[in-house]
């Protein structure tokens, strides 16, 4: 084998293979970013609210809950008397016996 053939075989062919795979990776990376949620990345989607059968819950359908915009918080919440609250759950004040549940973060 001449020097040229040796270089062509042991340098040229590997370079060609690397270029092909690099090109493939670059091409696939150029697509639109995946929709999937990944922790730590900003989540920029419209809020959604799932119910199994809203039409059965609301026969009139008039005041059905709507998705699509963020819910305003505490806009029309009446002020609660301090006496009717317990502060057992992580210091969060809740009306006595109203709701339960749990909180978590990740």
């Amino acid at each position: 084998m001449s020097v040229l053939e040796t270089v062509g075989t042991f340098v040229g062919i590997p370079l060609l293979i690397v270029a092909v795979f690099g090109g493939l990776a670059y091409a696939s990376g150029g697509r639109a970013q995946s929709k999937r949620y990944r922790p730590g990345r900003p989540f920029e989607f419209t809020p959604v609210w799932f119910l199994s059968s809203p039409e059965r819950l609301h026969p009139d359908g008039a005041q059905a809950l709507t998705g699509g915009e963020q819910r305003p918080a505490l806009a029309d919440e009446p002020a609660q008397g301090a006496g009717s609250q317990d502060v057992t759950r992580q210091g969060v004040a809740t009306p006595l016996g109203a709701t339960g549940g749990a909180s978590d973060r990740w």
Partner: protein
Amino acid sequence: MTVGDQTRSLTARPEVLDGPFTTRQLLRIDEALRLADSTTGLTFSVYVGDLDEPVRQHAEKLHAQLPDPSHSVLVAVSPNQRLLEIVTGAEARKRIPDRDAKLAALSMAASFGGGDLGGGIVSGLDQLASHAGRS
């Protein structure tokens, strides 16, 4: 289906398809919700979106907007704040004690931490429904 869908015409592309869930995940969530509702007799609902501070009160307010809050369970997930709230109504709380809700919340948070929103929601609903038992 999502709650907002019914206000739009049937031909329009539902907004929920632009969300983070694939069609398959949406179908699985829908199935999980229907199964949970029909086996327990409670009303389960899932909210995915930002929650305002104070988060717990916001989730409780959303819960109060459901048609029958005392028999309803709301799972509110805020991926941006990486927060999860499970709100059970007064009657639902008797079926799903806070301890069981916390257990479901833990497993959901574990899935969300791995980036699996759909799977976490489905498994959480399944846990909550099995803790609630049959109606």
